[in-house]
């Protein structure tokens, strides 16, 4: 909790706590140099309103290495994905900027022309996280633009550049349909008023109104209902019963019956109910689209990898498309860049972080001549590699293909379709029965009764209950850090009885480490010396030491990075070495898995070593214990051992070590064959197969903007301790849906009982239909909100 005490001062730019790196500039506190630079830039351009709109709106500056890559934005393949048009020196480009998060972001991005006059206009689409920018390319190039954006913390994402086909917002046509439906609903109700009020209106007036409603009903049937007809027809063709079939039947019955009534002068028809029906149904469709719009879940491998890499030829370096790489090419991979293909190291030292593939966060060392597998990320100085295989043949591509072949998992019958099947059969039987009954009694009534049954049985409320109940569930889960792909996932989650965890990167955090010292105790002064030296090294373990040791920092001189060995330097006149046992003069010690050693020598004396181990995420042990009370829990890991922090939680549970990606998928398949509904929680690409095989695959990620394997859901790593509550919540949501289905069936029973006796008046239909829809939607909304609140109180209890 030492961090807490230091958080009194937060950065004026990004709002992060200012630790001892704190700097005061222009009367304001900043956490790092990067934030200070952004502030200066904005201040110079008179853009400090940025800070007035929202508190601490900035995006913390990441490693500046990205800047080098901006020249890649100039090659045609990348350019074409972003540039909408380019004529006479004026270019318009659409960039995907996932970092934007608040109104200050919008303001700054739309005022870019005040920083760079060559920018003519910039416009944010917040929902799509897109920036459309028009600029004079003869004076300001695209790479320069990208650099400017990076400098202010809004670097565009190169790999997932938004094109029109990726738009995730609600389709425009749905809004138009909704508007037209509302317009017709309101006007038809108005025209029907004379009918509602009674018979003392003039006959001419009534006929006039009736024909107006006929006119208005045309777009309802031929424009608004087309989706329902299409879906119903698709169902018939594939011999499946779906919820849109009784709806389509209801629409047709409503319209023909009403048209017949008006033409034959019998009555006014049910055009008001028809318009209302479509209005409510479309609201349901809209809400469904609205809840799912935020996230993209289907990703291709190309989204993960750099589109271009630098190829080194005799003439120099040139950016090339990854897919154009051929074996034998030499490529240069710089700090933080992904190795896109399998390659052999030619120059430099590889510190390859395979966390994307395996979840393992500590980089592994690669010496010249060793093979680096595709998907690793270099951390440290640039390296040169020789390409071994083309992109299409790389291991990464194969892993991905393996995952894709596992995609076809057992389909779970959707609740709504199960209900729809019985419902449709029941409605048809009732209509038939009522028809036969009236056939014997009064044949003139048959047509009226049959249409009345079909009209009143139209499952509007039924069709609304599910999108709203699951839509709310998805929305509330999203607020808590679990983002589901669609409503079906809620249902799958409600059935889960087995939870399988991946270990590395899922249960253990990527960045949090446990550091222990073994050897002669170091006093506070010595710790400060070590920390000061660690700061001067780019090695990942140094960064861990620097972050975990809490002491002041001093200047280090004569710092030297010995590639592959460690770092040496002088702090306060003391010579210090950090690194491998050989380098520091200590004996090589046996290490347990997932552990790294950093030896330390001060003034020539070997003092001992630090052990660095990944730490389990907070609350994991408790969450696992809680899950185990209710369901089967198991752990699959590619490592040889389970970290100490987790052994207690998984005591007695199924734990499998040394799992290959295929082993994981097979383990899950075995569970499924034993009749279990399995949820897989994983993170790396090595879990991708298991995620796809499971009934519910959840990907854990530390930043929601990060790229993750395809899955049913994405979970914020901080929310993982709440998993038991999420499962309880989805079960409740399913129960709420069942209750709402029962409620809407009650309305249908009441309506049908009026219909079969031939007493369904237009006014009654016009009241019953909206009433049932509104009460069902109201019921599910309130019930789901309450179910999630009950959840929150238990969360507090655990916190």
């Amino acid at each position, binding site marked *: 909790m030492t961090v807490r005490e230091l958080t009194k001062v937060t950065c004026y730019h990004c709002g992060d706590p200012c630790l001892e790196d704190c700097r005061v500039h222009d009367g304001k506190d900043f956490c790092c140099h990067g934030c200070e630079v952004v502030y200066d830039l904005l201040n110079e351009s008179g853009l400090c309103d940025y800070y007035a709109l929202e508190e601490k709106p900035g995006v913390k500056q990441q490693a500046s290495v990205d800047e080098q890559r901006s020249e890649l934005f100039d090659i045609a393949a990348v350019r074409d994905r972003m540039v909408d048009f380019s004529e006479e020196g004026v270019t318009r480009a659409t960039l995907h900027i996932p970092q934007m998060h608040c*109104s200050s972001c919008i303001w700054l991005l739309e*005022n870019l022309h005040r920083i760079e006059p060559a920018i003519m206009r910039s416009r944010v*689409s917040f929902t799509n996280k897109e920036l459309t920018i028009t600029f004079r390319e003869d004076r300001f190039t695209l790479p320069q633009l990208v650099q400017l954006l990076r400098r202010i913390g809004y670097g565009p994402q190169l790999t997932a550049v938004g094109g029109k086909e990726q738009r995730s917002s*609600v389709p425009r046509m749905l*809004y138009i349909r909704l*508007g037209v439906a509302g317009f017709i609903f309101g006007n038809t109700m108005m025209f029907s008023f004379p009918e509602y009020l009674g018979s003392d209106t003039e006959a001419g007036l009534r006929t006039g109104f009736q024909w*107006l409603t006929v006119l208005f009903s045309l777009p309802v049937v031929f424009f608004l209902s087309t989706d329902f007809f299409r879906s119903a027809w698709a169902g018939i063709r594939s011999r499946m019963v779906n919820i849109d079939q009784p709806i389509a039947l209801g629409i047709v019955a409503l319209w023909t019956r009403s048209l017949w009534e008006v033409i034959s002068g019998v009555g006014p028809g049910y055009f008001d109910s028809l318009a209302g029906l479509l209005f409510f149904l479309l609201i349901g469709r809209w809400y469904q689209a609205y809840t799912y719009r935020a996230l993209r879940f289907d990703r291709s491998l190309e989204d993960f990898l750099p589109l271009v890499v630098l190829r080194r030829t005799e003439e120099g370096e040139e950016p090339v498309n990854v897919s154009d790489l051929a074996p034998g090419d030499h490529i240069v991979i710089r700090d933080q860049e992904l190795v896109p293909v399998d390659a052999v190291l030619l120059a430099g030292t590889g510190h390859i972080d395979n966390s994307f593939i395996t979840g393992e966060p500590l980089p592994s060392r690669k010496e010249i001549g060793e093979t680096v597998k595709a998907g690793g990320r270099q951390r440290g100085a640039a390296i040169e590699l020789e390409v071994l295989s083309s992109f299409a043949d790389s291991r990464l591509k194969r892993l991905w293909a393996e995952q894709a072949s596992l995609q076809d998992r057992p389909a779970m019958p959707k609740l709504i379709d199960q209900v729809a099947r019985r419902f449709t059969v029941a409605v048809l039987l009732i209509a038939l029965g009522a028809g036969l009954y009236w056939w014997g009694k009064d044949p003139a009534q048959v047509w009226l009764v049959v249409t009345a049954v079909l009209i009143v049985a139209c499952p509007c409320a039924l069709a609304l209950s599910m999108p709203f109940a699951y839509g709310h569930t998805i929305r509330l889960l999203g607020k808590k850090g679990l983002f589901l792909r669609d409503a079906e996932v809620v249902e799958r989650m409600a059935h889960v009885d087995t939870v399988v965890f991946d270990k590395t990167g899922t249960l253990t955090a990527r960045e949090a480490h446990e550091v222990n010292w073994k050897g002669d105790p170091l006093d506070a002064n010595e710790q400060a010396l070590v920390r000061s030296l660690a700061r001067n090294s780019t090695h990942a373990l140094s960064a861990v030491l620097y972050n975990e040791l809490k002491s002041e920092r001093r200047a280090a001189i004569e710092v030297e990075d010995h590639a592959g060995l460690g770092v040496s330097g002088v702090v306060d006149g003391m010579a210090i070495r950090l690194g491998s046992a050989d380098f520091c003069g200590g004996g090589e010690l046996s290490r347990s898995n997932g552990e790294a050693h950093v030896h330390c020598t001060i003034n020539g004396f070997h003092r001992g070593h630090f052990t660095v181990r990944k730490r389990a995420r907070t609350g994991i042990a408790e969450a696992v214990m809680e899950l185990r009370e209710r369901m089967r829990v198991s752990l699959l890991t590619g490592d040889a051992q389970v970290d100490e922090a987790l052994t207690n939680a998984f005591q007695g549970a199924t734990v499998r070590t040394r799992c290959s990606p295929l082993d994981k998928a097979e383990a899950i398949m075995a569970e499924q064959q034993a009749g279990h509904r399995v949820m897989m929680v994983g993170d790396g690409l090595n879990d991708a197969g298991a995620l796809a095989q499971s009934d519910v695959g959840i990907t854990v990620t530390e930043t929601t903007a990060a790229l993750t394997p395809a899955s049913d859901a994405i979970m914020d790593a901080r929310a993982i301790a709440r998993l038991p509550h999420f499962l309880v919540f989805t079960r409740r949501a399913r129960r709420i849906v069942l209750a709402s289905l029962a409620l809407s069936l009650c309305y249908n029973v009441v309506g049908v009982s009026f219909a079969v006796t031939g007493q369904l008046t237009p006014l009654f239909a016009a009241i019953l239909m909206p009433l049932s829809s509104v009460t069902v939607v109201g019921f599910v909304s309130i019930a789901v909100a309450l179910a999630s609140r009950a959840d929150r109180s238990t969360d507090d209890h655990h916190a």
Partner: protein
Amino acid sequence: MSVIFLLITASTVVAGIFLVAFIWAVRQGQYDDDRSHAVRMLHDPAPPANETPVDR
């Protein structure tokens, strides 16, 4: 009583105009993004574009 037909026609035409305006707005893309418009109207207008920042 024919005056009511006139009124109905007039009101339907007015409502129709709004419907057309709505459809136009949707096609313009005004409903594609429900956040930034609401925020943008609260932002103060920028000073004239030709005004160079004051040197410090």
